């Protein structure tokens, strides 16, 4: 009999406790973000869609070779100084967001963006073409790039192997743009590629 009343007491008191807790939550500000209007600010090292800045890339193929799933397609024509890049594409169906490509790009042109909302109706559209070969081909050789007024990696910024092997002393390429070779204004990425503008939306 005592157990019976103890059970009733416990039921009533625990129900009251629970009700009090949920009531407190009514006054708390909801944690929901209204997604397309408000966006979460991604952490700095968030790995969003891989983005390549085509004004910097010189088709060295490092990224394509490093990619464990072979999802970067680079094609070029010609040899030596006349070598021209005709295609740079990333297949996001395959990409595993491992970031191996971005960590080893010598020009710093390929980066992990903060983009993530690229839903598509057809998975074939997830192969992003970063350049339109009908519009323009991109020179690969350093000398040709300088001749044609393309951005090149500043020589002096490279870590000198002799004095000190402090690789981390080398600033990223973006912070020291080459003054003599600004990127040509007409070099827009091919349609459908994530532009740097997309990143701004992420920062809200």
């Amino acid at each position, binding site marked *: 009999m005592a157990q019976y009343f103890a059970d*009733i007491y416990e039921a009533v008191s625990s129900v009251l406790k*629970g*009700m009090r807790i*949920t*009531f407190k*939550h009514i006054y708390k*500000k*909801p*944690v929901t973000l*209204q997604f397309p209007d408000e966006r979460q600010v991604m952490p700095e090292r968030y790995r969003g869609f891989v983005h390549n800045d085509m004004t910097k890339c010189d088709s060295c193929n490092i990224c394509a070779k490093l990619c464990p799933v072979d999802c970067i397609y680079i094609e070029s024509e010609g040899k030596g100084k006349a070598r021209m890049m005709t295609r740079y594409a990333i297949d996001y169906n395959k990409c595993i967001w491992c970031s191996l490509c971005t960590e080893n790009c010598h020009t710093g042109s390929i980066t992990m963006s903060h983009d993530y909302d690229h839903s598509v109706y057809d998975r074939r559209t997830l192969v992003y073409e970063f350049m339109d070969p009908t519009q323009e081909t991109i020179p690969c050789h350093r000398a040709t790039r300088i001749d044609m007024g393309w951005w090149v990696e500043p020589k002096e910024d490279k870590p000198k192997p002799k004095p000190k092997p402090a690789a981390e002393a080398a600033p990223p390429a973006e912070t020291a743009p080459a003054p003599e070779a600004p990127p040509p204004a007409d070099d827009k990425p091919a349609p459908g590629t994530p532009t740097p503008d997309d990143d701004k939306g992420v920062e809200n």
Partner: protein
Amino acid sequence: MDALIALIQNAPGAANMSAQALHNTAAALMATLMFTVMALCAIVFTWMERKVAGFLQNRYGPMRTGRWHGWAQAVADMLKILGKEDIIPAEADKGLFVFAPILVLLGSLLAWAAIPWAPGFVAADLDLGLFYIFAVSSLVIIGILMAGWSSNNKWALYGAARGAAQMVSYEIPLALATIPVIMYTGSLNTQDIVIAQQGGLANWYIFRDPFLFVAFWMYFIASIAETNRGPFDMPETESELVAGYHTEYSGMRFAFFFLSEYANLFLVSLIAVMVFLGGWWAPLPLLDVIPPALTFIIKGVMMVFFNMWVRWTLPRVRVDQLMHLCWKVMIPIALICVLGSGIIQMVRG
């Protein structure tokens, strides 16, 4: 009803209507009004339920449809449901399958007739009003049993059996809890019950004596079980029975069950207000400026909110716990309330 008849009589062109015609017009008007209120409360309360659930869980609930806090979401959902294909399973008992949702809706609609909205404004001013409400709302049980059985579906049958067991059981504490009030009033007429509570908060039946206070909570718990809502939503436990007795229903027929669920929710809340919480009387003399019908509805909506708050707080009980709670806890307590309240009335004279 009398108030409504007087209203029609004063309307232009109604001066030479016969008494019978007047009565019929008033009845038709009242029935339309009740049905509109019922449909409206289903729409408003589905939206409210989702908002309350959202805010209790630090979310927003619907936010898009209709701009302001997604107010049009329930309207959109209703339109969607009306546009859905009406499917009757091949193996179902067609007659019962079709009739069940109508019976469920009828059960909740009939009970609305005896709800006193304001002084004189009650569709059926019955001497046995409260008894009538409990009697016709039992139709819902038959409807649910029919729906589950005729669907020819395991889940539906389980849900219906649970629903019938639960609702039949909980009707007992539900009715027992109102008996002390009936003893105080000396009448089953719903208007008389409200009129007896005139004169502010202290005269509401819930505060008349400690036994009535307990009886109110007995009524409240039983009413949650009667409306099949959480934590007693055994007939439609979506985690184990898909959707319980209305698993096989779709489109308009499903909407009937839905409508009846929310109409019942508002109904039991209104009965709680009518029987224990002073009906249309304002709690303070200060608030007497509010029209009585509005006071009544506001109180009802507050009770509905309370119901939702309970639903989104407590976990679902097991079937055996449900029956234990009813037969071994609530019925004895309700009986003690009847006895205790009777003794108090005797002592007070």
